[in-house]
């Protein structure tokens, strides 16, 4: 069986599956249950000067019959005292020395940061994660994403921490920026050993049409929150790729955002992550989903004759290029398998009304026909077809050499 042991910037764990800093890591009780279920590591719910939370706190986006496609929260960092948290951290580390225990923190002054680092290191924790990502409540106080959005502040605070900490320091990035490489490079300059991404995205999930109040509601009012869950995975994967492919950025990355299945996790590894963190999926289904993460990734590695989970690292990121580098002479067209087609004609109407009018209907058949001379190979029909592998996109061999935009006759800059 393939080896899943992970060394993330010096933090060792039996596998790369960690719990993200969030409600599943609120208490030692939960984290110990998670380790028993098989999680390799956990990032403790962000420590800081005590806050007070509201009720209610979460809202979600359901898509058709699927609950929690996206989850939104207006919760803050830990609402329990530092003393209680430290006592439980000690207990977890004693009982589970082999699992990675990382402490997430968010403070205001240098002294507060230093004090917490010293007290945590005394307990033998494996590393720190700096929460620069929380998009609500904390940033109004000059913490959280307010730090993540300002590279200079990000660098300065990171250096406060790295000058004190002897254990690895991870900077958790907020996605609420236009260019993720700015704060990532600032963290690198500040001496961070790694980054993790993404934290939650600014959001309003919806409005209750009976009361006309935005969700979630607190005594008739609401506040914008942080969005996460399966819906945010594409955004996280893109930001992950931007850092993996940035030649100036050298640190390992812990991938977060919408991971629920082993397939999701594998995609993050292929995009360059060394470990992954999960929050919403555990809030939905509990710790036991880790069984399928472990078995699914191991079986996938075996199937591909790979020995170690790090063999996956970054393979797909290398294939993510600038648009200008893509071959304009490459062409695919849609092909319908009449044996599999159930004659719903969704492909037809999608192409007819929404794309390139390249699917035809014949008078005495309900099975649509692709107009091969006009099909541009956009994929839309294959995306809407309800039958697995009924519409395939088939390459048209053109014998033409690769042609990129810079050399294309239609490019005004081309001579």
């Amino acid at each position: 069986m393939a080896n899943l042991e992970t060394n993330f910037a010096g933090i060792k764990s039996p596998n790369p599956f960690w719990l993200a800093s969030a409600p599943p890591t609120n208490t030692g009780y939960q984290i110990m249950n998670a380790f028993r279920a098989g999680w390799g590591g956990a990032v403790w719910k962000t420590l800081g000067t005590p806050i007070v939370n509201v009720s209610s706190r979460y809202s979600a986006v359901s898509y058709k019959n699927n609950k929690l496609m996206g989850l939104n929260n207006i919760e803050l960092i830990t609402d329990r005292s530092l003393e209680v948290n430290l006592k439980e951290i000690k207990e977890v580390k004693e009982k589970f020395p082999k699992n990675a225990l990382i402490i997430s923190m968010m403070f205001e002054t240098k002294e507060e940061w230093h004090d917490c680092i010293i007290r945590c290191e005394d307990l033998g924790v494996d590393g720190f994660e700096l929460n620069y990502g929380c998009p609500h409540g904390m940033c109004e106080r000059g913490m959280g994403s307010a730090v993540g959005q300002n590279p200079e502040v990000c660098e300065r605070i990171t250096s406060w921490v790295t000058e004190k900490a002897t254990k690895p320091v991870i900077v958790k990035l907020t996605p609420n920026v236009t260019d993720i490489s700015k704060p990532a490079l600032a963290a690198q300059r500040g001496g961070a050993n790694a980054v993790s991404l993404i934290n939650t995205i600014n959001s309003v999930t919806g409005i209750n049409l009976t009361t006309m109040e935005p969700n979630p509601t607190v005594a008739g009012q609401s506040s914008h929150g942080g969005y996460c869950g399966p819906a945010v995975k594409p955004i996280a994967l893109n930001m992950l790729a931007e850092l993996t492919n940035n030649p100036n950025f050298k640190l390992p990355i812990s991938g977060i955002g919408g991971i629920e299945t082993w397939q999701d996790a594998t995609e993050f590894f292929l995009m360059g992550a060394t470990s992954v963190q999960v929050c919403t999926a555990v809030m939905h289904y509990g710790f036991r989903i880790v069984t399928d993460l472990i078995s699914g990734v191991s079986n996938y590695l075996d199937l591909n004759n790979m020995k170690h989970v790090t063999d996956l690292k970054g393979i797909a990121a290398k294939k993510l290029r600038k648009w200008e580098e893509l071959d304009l002479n490459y062409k695919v067209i849609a092909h319908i398998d009449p044996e599999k087609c159930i004659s719903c004609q969704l492909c037809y109407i999608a192409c007819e009304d929404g794309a390139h009018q390249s699917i035809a209907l014949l008078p005495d058949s309900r099975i649509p026909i692709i107009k091969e001379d006009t099909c541009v190979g956009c994929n839309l029909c294959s995306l809407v077809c309800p039958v697995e592998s009924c519409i395939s996109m088939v390459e048209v061999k053109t014998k033409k050499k690769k042609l990129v935009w810079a050399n294309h006759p239609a490019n005004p800059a081309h001579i």
Partner: protein
Amino acid sequence: MPDNSWLPIPKENIIKERFAKTKPIMTPSEAVVESSRCIFCHDAPCINACPTSIDIPMFIRQIMTKNTTGAAKTIFTQNILGKSCGQVCPTSVLCEGACVYHDLNEKPIDIGRLQAYATESAIDKNIRFFEKGKSTGKKVAIIGAGPAGIACAHELTVLGHEVTIFEANKKPGGLNTYGVAPYKFSNEDASKELKYISEIGFKIKTNSPVKEVKKLEKEFDAIFIGTGLGSSRKINIPGENLKGVFGATEFIHNLRAKELKVSVGKNVIVIGGGNTAIDAAVESSLLGANVTIIYRRSEKEQSAYNFEVEHAKKHNVKFMYLTSPVEILGKGNITGVKCIRNKLKKSEIIPQKGSEFVVSCDMLIKASGQKKMVEFFNSISKIKLGNGKIIVNKDFQTTNPKYFAGGDCINGGKEVVNAVANGRDAAHGIDKFLIKNKRK
């Protein structure tokens, strides 16, 4: 037998078509759609309703994530006969009957077919999850290669004991090979599954009925009895020895041994109200017969599952309730059966004098239960029986400490999945007995 009253054996392709699987193996896209309906309940009621406690939500989730290999492992870890159980379990009274979807008035998750899908994939690719444990030097004999014996042998082998199964029949598998309806589980299914399981390394000696246990006792450190039930019960009325009268289990045994190539009478009467009566009736009907089931009580009291009764009706099987046979008629060959109508007073059957009538038929199948192997059990010293069933403790140990037992011979006849659960748990009882709690 007069030629015109006996049907020719249907052609091979017709047999194939008629005996097609009632629950065919899912296609990959069916499996993905069905598995994504499961909501992954905590402390799932479906698990609690499975006698082998398979982690159903987990294996379904693994199918959903296309981790079919992981799904098969989750199933086999609890139930090494997960393939046959997926196909033969009466799921609507077990796991699927407990699914929370019933509370929403929606179709429950098709757990049996998902289970068959994942396990068949692993068996076809011969992906193996278990190996022979470190040898303990202990030897265990198993009497009977039915589901109980096979499950026990597999678990004992994983635990490191040397196992030999003695089986009376030509082929192993017990009623999976010679009993359950072939439109649920075929001969091919049975032999593929047995090959996959036994490759772990236990011996099966077929054509080896155990008649005398002295020799076994000398050679082996412990013995597991998984002999199931005996032959069909007599109905004790005149004419039972006429030609054309069969016991249901013998009829079905012959049907499966001859790969369905058997001839049946044009008009068949089946006596009984249980699932075996239904199976024999449907099988006769699929071979072309005109079939009537005669049962002494009413529809409400019959022990056959509802879905089985519906299945029989779909195959044009007619039911005659509140009727008992009193005499089988004929000279040499059966020509009919004389019956009497009954009334029920609470649970007491009161035959109605003067209501006798004759139904003509060419074949009669008795499905009023199976005998227990009392004589064989009594030949083993110190084994206590209750109602013909072997009495065991929670470790499946009999009153003779060297003997353990499980399956139909201790429960009087339940399902394959109960036999598997017993066999597996008995293996741990035997392990405890053999190495005196020395395992940590």
